[in-house]
């Protein structure tokens, strides 16, 4: 059965570039040139493309945000092989928290009839991991999160859900929302042909009003959580001396590193 897949992607600041918060409203200052497709979403895109290659169908990229969300994040997904883009952009959305974004995404996704909605488990800028579950809730669909594998058989989807010391196998009916974990696959590099082809793929541009978003539920004012302040984590130097009186300094050192989760 061919699958109608939506993959939700976000643009994030280049992980290699410096990040800055806007001191006036505590939102992330995003330089358009330094935006990239959220690396975890790249894994989600790859998973969606593999499902399409296995089952046939179509992959629609859904993204919320200003121009760069389209030109940097969504375009990259198109270059990798997705078929088209739905792009929601509206000034009323500025400063939306994760829940408000999930609400906005739900308003967009409701307009299509997708069998599977695929998201990355987190974004490298905010790391809340809230969007996929909130999205499933708004859409009233089963949610399968933190997946390390995804399989579709008939009208059911099965994932291996990453757990602390292994994984659970969970299954649900389609349509469903799936959150993909970092490391689930090695995303492909876009080919030159893919990059060229991306220019001619259809893009649907929508405003908040087009999809019936209530403006009181989004933006800085409409968000239920507010960022009140921020502080940079201070890098702290510590010196630890491991004595070797009983001849097992190496064990103590290894234990220390393991406790600190450095190895």
């Amino acid at each position, binding site marked *: 059965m061919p699958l109608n897949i939506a993959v939700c992607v976000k643009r994030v600041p280049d992980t290699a570039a410096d990040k800055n918060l806007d001191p006036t409203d505590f939102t992330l200052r995003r330089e358009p040139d330094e935006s990239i497709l959220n690396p975890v979403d790249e894994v989600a895109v790859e998973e969606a493309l593999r499902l399409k290659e296995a089952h046939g169908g179509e992959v629609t990229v859904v993204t919320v945000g200003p121009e760069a969300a389209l030109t940097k994040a969504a375009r990259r997904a198109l*270059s990798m092989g997705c078929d088209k883009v739905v792009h929601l952009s509206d000034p009323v959305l500025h400063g939306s928290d994760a829940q408000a974004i999930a609400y906005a995404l739900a308003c967009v996704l409701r307009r299509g009839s997708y069998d599977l909605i695929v998201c990355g488990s987190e974004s490298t800028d905010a790391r809340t991991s809230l969007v996929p579950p909130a999205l499933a809730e708004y859409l009233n669909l089963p949610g399968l999160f933190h997946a390390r594998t995804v399989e579709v058989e008939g009208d059911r989807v099965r994932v291996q859900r990453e757990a602390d010391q292994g994984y659970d196998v969970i299954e649900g009916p389609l349509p469903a929302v799936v959150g993909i974990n970092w490391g689930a696959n090695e995303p*492909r*590099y*876009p*080919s*030159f*042909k893919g*990059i*060229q082809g991306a*220019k001619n793929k259809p893009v649907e541009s929508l405003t908040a009003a087009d999809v019936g978003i209530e403006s009181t539920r989004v933006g800085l004012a409409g968000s239920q959580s507010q960022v009140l302040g921020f502080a940079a984590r201070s890098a702290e130097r510590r010196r630890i001396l491991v004595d070797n009186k009983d001849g097992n300094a190496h064990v103590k050192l290894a234990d220390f590193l393991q406790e600190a989760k450095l190895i």
Partner: protein
Amino acid sequence: MDFDLPPETEEFRRVVRSFAEEVVRPVAEHYDARSEFPLEVVRQMGELGLFGLVLPERYGGADAEFITLCVAIEELARVDSSVAITLSAGVGLGAMPFLLFGSEDQKETWLPPMAAGEVLGAFGLTEASGGSDLSALRTVATRDGEEWVIDGSKAFITNAGTPLSKVVTVAAITGRSEGGKEMSSIAVAHGTPGFCVGREYRKLGWRASDTRELVFEGCRVPVTNLVGEQGSGYRNFLTILDGGRIAIGALAVGLAQGCLDESLRYARQRMAFGREIGAYQAVQFKLADMATKIAAARDQIYKAAWLRQQGRRYKAVASMAKLFASEVAMECAREAVQIHGGYGYIEEFPVARHFRDAKILEIGEGTSEVQRMLIARELGLPGAVPGS
């Protein structure tokens, strides 16, 4: 006036750069140290479509402009010259003779697997007795009914002995004309009786790139294996080499950039006499000179690629660009090692490898002397002999 590359080319540059950083860099030292052909990396380069970039779509290529291939070679060479030359030679020397001069049959046989990176072709021109002087060519092909019989040997042939190597285009004397020897190119598939691929040379650099000696003893191939017209060899070699020069220049620019990037990083972190060495003017001036020369070399290479793309005369510019870029690469590699001090001489740092890899750029696809001779001839000076 517009100095920007096409946006898709810039976007693809970023893709190749991350490929080079993520796939090539972690294993470059490994393959170099073992002088081993990086089959797995080359396979992934094929998947990325690098070998098909400039080939026509009907043969599985991407129909990209030549500049896009140059940018890809540049970005690979910034990290590892061996994979960059594997690509450059695979396309420029392996596929180009078929694309530019081959019969439809030859194109259909060889170009699709080459575009996919599944087959590597090679170009056998140089012989042990002399590479710069084309007229010294000794390999002979004699017509016998519907076959050519090839006798002779070739030296230093890139991509001739990898697990993906399936065909070599061989330059041979096919007769005599009033001007002297008549030269032609003939395709010889691997496995043809009488065609023997020698052992891998032990090289100063480009150690993960495959370089072989080839021997032909009564090697028979069908007359249809002629690539281009009989007697068109000389003219065709020069066309192949002109394009190859630009690609080698791009490789040189990439290597030089890699040297600058490594040196910048090192200069910021290495402390001496209480300050980072990058705070000392002697080091800063080295870095400033490197950056300046690289910028000039890059512009010249892109201009040569652009002229070629426009179908304009590019011969002299290609020679100048290759000459300049390869000497800039050598210089940057030397300064990069100097800035790294003792660590620059140790193989764990990539600059030691860059240093060894740089020298060939002043030799392959026409030595620096040959480039100067060609440029002098373009200036209208007498006497210089044409060469590779």
